[in-house]
């Protein structure tokens, strides 16, 4: 029975899809379609015929990432274009090794908080699942409770599983949510949302690089890669700004990224990984001064190479990054710097906890779980803890847990839930939907 549940974590950025009960999802693919930009498509007829094709989901990751214009079915994290989503899903159901007969399978779908309270999101969603794809039954869950479930089962002696409550901070593609979970259910009055996620950060980086170096406004996928490889969270912004201002090899943040040229390499890459990692010494210093000394020797050894490195090669398209590397993720912690009238992540967590029952406060602070792709920036958890500590009463412990794979955490929780014996009873069946409509069915998923 359990093998017939398809678990679909339908994120704004990536779809995580697989069969319930398994450890890993079958596929993690971008939730969008892409088309090569008409202006940049080659002039020869043959190439334009082959490249004009619309790329869907998994085909994008394999394709040449330059100048793709993307269409996403989600806007600000919510489903707005069901037609596009249907195309993507049907492509996935056809091409992936999933149960082929959907009419006997159930679907476990994740949706952002409050998605079911918006009629124009809920109705197309139910129609998509039951009318277009003919699923036997559906369960809609929010990501926070699934993450909690996964963490509780992974670590049975942890605070999250002993107390049955935790605070899930989901810093994803479209936005960041801080959700208190109590007895495996998320408390919807405690949810706080910060309208910044991976997409905004990529766009911000794109804007900065385009303004300062090369125009990359059309290269969303490449800049995603730059962000993932080179950006990190700073623990001391004023100090790092000083370092980033220095010239030459004192500037530990400077590094170069080479854009794909379409001939010798179709993927962009970091020009010199050692150079890009130099800033790490800033944080190791306190721990192992010896390592730093060794590093220094090594640096003098590669001096010759270094001179070579510093010249910008004009035959290649490349750009330097300095302070962008830590100022971009910084926006999650201080959105006010961007001109947004919103509190940072630490304050978001505090407000979310404060709207819960006071008895829960100490437990929630002690089991903060980080999930979502944007928490993968190095030192994200450390920075959050440092910002949180002054805002939290002294006698509460603050403990932040990061999942081993923050992107897949939600899916893995969903897989656990799908394999549990009670799952079938929680679903809404197709007959229920036809009888009651989407509004009443969705009430079953809300506590």
């Amino acid at each position, binding site marked *: 029975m359990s093998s017939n549940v398809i678990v679909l974590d339908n994120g704004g950025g990536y779809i995580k899809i697989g069969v319930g009960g398994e450890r890993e999802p079958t596929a993690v693919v971008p939730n969008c379609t892409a088309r090569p930009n008409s202006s940049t498509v080659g002039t020869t007829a043959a190439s334009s015929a082959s490249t004009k094709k619309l790329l869907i989901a998994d085909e994008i990751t394999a394709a040449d990432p330059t100048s793709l214009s993307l269409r996403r079915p989600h806007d600000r994290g919510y489903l707005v274009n069901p037609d596009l989503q249907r195309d993507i899903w049907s492509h996935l159901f056809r091409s992936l090794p999933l149960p082929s007969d959907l009419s006997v399978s159930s679907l476990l779908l994740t949706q952002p*908080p409050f998605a079911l309270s918006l009629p124009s999101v809920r*109705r197309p969603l139910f129609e998509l699942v039951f009318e277009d794809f003919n699923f036997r039954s559906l369960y809609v869950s929010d990501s926070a409770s699934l993450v909690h479930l996964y963490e509780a089962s992974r670590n049975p002696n942890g605070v999250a599983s002993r107390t049955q409550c935790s605070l899930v901070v989901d810093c994803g593609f479209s936005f960041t949510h801080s959700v208190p979970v109590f007895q495996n259910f998320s408390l919807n009055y405690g949810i706080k949302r910060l309208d910044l996620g991976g997409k905004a950060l990529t766009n911000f980086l794109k804007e900065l690089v385009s303004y300062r170096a090369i125009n990359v406004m059309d290269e969303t996928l490449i800049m995603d890669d730059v962000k993932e490889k080179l950006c990190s969270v700073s623990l001391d912004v004023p100090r790092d700004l000083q370092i980033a201002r220095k010239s030459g090899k004192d500037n530990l943040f400077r590094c170069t990224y080479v854009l794909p040229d379409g001939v010798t390499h179709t993927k962009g890459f970091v020009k010199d990984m050692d150079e890009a990692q130099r800033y790490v010494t800033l944080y190791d210093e306190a721990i192992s001064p010896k390592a730093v000394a060794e590093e220094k020797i090594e640096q003098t050894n590669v001096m010759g190479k270094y001179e070579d490195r510093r010249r910008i090669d004009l035959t290649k398209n490349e750009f330097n990054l300095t302070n962008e590397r830590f100022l971009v993720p910084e926006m999650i912690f201080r959105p006010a710097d961007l001109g947004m009238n919103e509190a940072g992540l630490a304050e*978001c967590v505090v407000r979310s906890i404060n709207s819960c029952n006071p008895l829960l406060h100490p437990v929630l602070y002690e089991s903060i779980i980080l999930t979502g792709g944007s928490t993968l920036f190095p030192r994200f958890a450390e920075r959050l803890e440092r910002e949180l500590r002054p805002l939290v009463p002294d006698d509460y412990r603050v403990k932040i847990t990061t999942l081993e794979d923050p992107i897949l955490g939600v899916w893995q929780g969903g897989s656990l839930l799908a394999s549990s014996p009670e799952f079938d009873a929680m679903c809404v069946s197709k007959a229920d939907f036809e009888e009651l409509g989407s*509004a009443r069915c969705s009430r079953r998923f809300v506590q």
Partner: protein
Amino acid sequence: MDDDMSTSLRRMSSRTRKVAGKMAAALASSDNRTQAALARLEALENDNAAVEAVEIIDDDEASLDDEDQAYIQRKQSMNMKRKTRQGKARENAKKAARTFLELLHEANLESLPPHVPSYLKAAVGPPSSTSRRNLCTVCGFTANYTCVRCGVRFCCIQCQNIHNDTRCLKFVA
């Protein structure tokens, strides 16, 4: 079938309002600086740098596989039906992807009683400290000066010149 029609009593025209983000911000405020700030934030949520207006027209050809029977049938039935202007408008409205803000507007969340949690209530709200760090929009370092026209920050005269030459008032409609 659905009972949620009764809950949203407000009647709405089926025509989708095509107000660009920039224009919406411009309508909301008359002040250059707020406009610039809002438009800049709006730009952060765009998928593609340039908005494609042609997308709606060639969408039909973008069907996944052309031998899709349902697709062909739909196309035939569309051809057989008498085309009225109203029908066309409805068809277009259905096809054009709506933005989330339009959906939010439709849900009419403002009418909910204040104790019910909703999308609007979940927003984190303004920061407790009003101080913000000022970073130069040109080079990224600490900025001490403000552009008198658009309110963007810069750190030195070189950066000011670059700002004035390139994108002062870029985001203002």
